[in-house]
């Protein structure tokens, strides 16, 4: 359960949106109730390591890209910082 003095930020909503996945679809893929996905997104529940790995495998990204103790910066900003090019203009 989420504690009041510990915060865990996550990008699940963004990752879902990018992949056009509903909470129900994510929940079915990792074997939990859809409400649990909602609670995790809102920070009301901290998932177990097992569940975090399942989410990581589902989205195909490392766990630290889904969960963080610090607030996430926007994905486009992160990509710009990493690649040195604006999102959508990078690559070849």
């Amino acid at each position, binding site marked *: *359960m989420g504690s009041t003095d510990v915060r865990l930020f996550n990008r699940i909503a963004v990752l879902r949106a990018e992949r056009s996945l509903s909470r129900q679809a994510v929940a079915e893929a990792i074997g939990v109730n859809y409400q*649990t996905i909602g*609670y995790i997104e809102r920070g009301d529940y901290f998932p177990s390591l097992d569940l975090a790995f399942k989410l990581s495998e589902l989205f195909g990204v490392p766990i630290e890209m889904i969960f963080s103790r610090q607030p996430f910066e926007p994905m486009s900003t992160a990509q710009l910082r990493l690649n040195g090019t604006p999102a959508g203009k990078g690559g070849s």
Partner: protein
Amino acid sequence: MNNIRILGIAVVNRAQRRCLVAVMYASFLVTGIAYTHYWWLALLPALICCLAYGGVYKFTRRYVIQTSRRDSVQPDEREASVRDHAMARSYLVVSFLFLLFTGLMVQHVRLTDGEWNYVFWGVMLLTSTLPQALITWNEPDIPKTEPLT
């Protein structure tokens, strides 16, 4: 779950859901008081208590392991942890009450048959419903099912 309304109460909303728990225990209290005067006066609050408990049961059904083959929905890790937490807290409360009543017994507190009857049913209700009541009381608002929100 999002659309379920019990006694006009939307269980998706925690504030409203808490009313269900309050109604359940308050109506039990009224049932006991009414029963000491006229037994038929206790019928209506007893019915309300049962209806409220039905609502609490319906809300918390997911949190307990379903043993029947027809409904094989199992609680996930969050629901199991919420259930375990509620059970642990209930155990503490019931243990405290047990010690309290034992203390009263030792002090030779005399109760009438009606009062013992009420205490018995109160203990029965509390031990059987407290974990479910705690879950209903503490669970946050249920997230919506919209695809991308």
